[in-house]
């Protein structure tokens, strides 16, 4: 076993320090060492998008990074996007438009949706489909996710900003 390394990560706005083996993936560290189990593991080879987080503001797959690589970084997980009790518009829209069923892909979908809208405030359904293609859902057939993201985009634009 290689020696543990200390890693300092700003997680959802708070500084945290964890001690991990170099081989530990960032996804596992988020779930096990930081206790944030909203980040899900669906494939561990970068295909499904369930482990999507924001790393310094950009979407990444946390299963394709080592925890030690996040030293000094800021990460945002699904637990960090609501403003206290107030849901992020993307979260509300997913519920309102039935953009989730089993909920397993949902944290990744919501973060990917926020990322899409942050770059394109008024995406068309086709743009949403192309931009979010890296996130897999087995339950919804995607149509209601597209509707959710569109609806959230409208709310986010009206509120004058994204996440």
């Amino acid at each position, binding site marked *: *076993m*290689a020696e543990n*390394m200390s890693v300092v990560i700003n997680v959802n706005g708070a500084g945290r320090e964890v001690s991990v*083996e*170099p*081989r530990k*993936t960032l996804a*596992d560290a988020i779930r096990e060492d930081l206790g944030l189990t909203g980040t899900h593991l669906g494939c*561990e*080879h*970068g295909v499904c*998008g369930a482990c*999507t987080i924001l*790393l310094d503001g*950009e*979407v*990444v*797959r946390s*299963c*394709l*990074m*080592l925890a*030690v*690589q996040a*030293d000094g970084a800021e990460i945002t997980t699904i637990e960090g996007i609501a403003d206290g009790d107030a849901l992020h518009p993307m979260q509300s829209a997913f519920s309102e438009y039935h953009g989730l069923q089993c909920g397993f892909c949902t944290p990744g979908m919501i973060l*990917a949706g926020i*990322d899409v809208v942050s770059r394109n405030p008024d995406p068309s359904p086709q743009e949403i489909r*192309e*931009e979010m*293609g*890296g*996130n897999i859902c087995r339950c919804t057939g995607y149509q209601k996710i597209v509707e959710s993201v569109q609806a959230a985009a409208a709310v986010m634009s009206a509120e004058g900003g994204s996440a």
Partner: protein
Amino acid sequence: MKPAVFDYSAPESIGEALDLLAEHGSGAKVLAGGQSLVPMLNFRLARPAHLIDVNGVGSLSYISANGALRIGAMTRLTALGESGDVAGAHPVIPAAVAQIGHRAIRNRGTIGGSLAHNDPAAELPAVLMALDAEVTARSADGERVIGMQDLIEDRLFDTTLDDTELLTEIRIPAAAGSSFGFREFARRHGDFALAGVAAVITTDGSTITQAALGAFGGTHATRLPTAEAALVGAEAGDAAFAAAGAGAAADFPATSDVHGTAEYRSHLINVLTVRALKDAAGQAGGGNG
């Protein structure tokens, strides 16, 4: 699916990275964007004793457009795809980058990592071959410049880089006055292509004066010399494009897998070559299929 044990170093300079490579040699693996290497670690298909993470080497990330386009090996694909300098010099590059994986992959993946990993279905090795790019490889002993053809040869998931060498820069000569087409066919948006082609041609108005075609999705990235020969000197039009398509099928090292037969892929490269050339002739964009 958890990685086996490895030692980990995160050098902050090229020199440090080269020293580590010199020290660990074949037992070491360079971690660039990690979008191909980390899955292999998770599957335990790659079991390096030592991982040298060069993400902290800031001097490997740059795009410079003074003269030839020079791109640092650790330039992320998102930055590559969104760079005005790159798009201005070689618009085929952003067209190709748009087809690589998905946003989350491009945010981490790097140009140097893609070349060094050399997946035969990856876009960039073939595109850079068509652009006659060169790479700089450095080791503790010095540096050398390698043409794309010589870097890739007919290898897959491997290059002619030595174990102690680090790919540091990609240099692409100007190709003023050329036009391009880029076509690939993947079963889903963002997947590795079953076949794909980047075509860069120059005409004097009607006759094709230069043609460079790079193909991917076969057993290895390759130029398509028969197709190029069919184009140079010919009138830009359906007849030349059809001849080039047939030439591409002859040149393409097609192979069978779960996604399609070799016969199908040979046919695809023909169709895609013709479509890419039509795009180039019409200065249109590109895309899947």
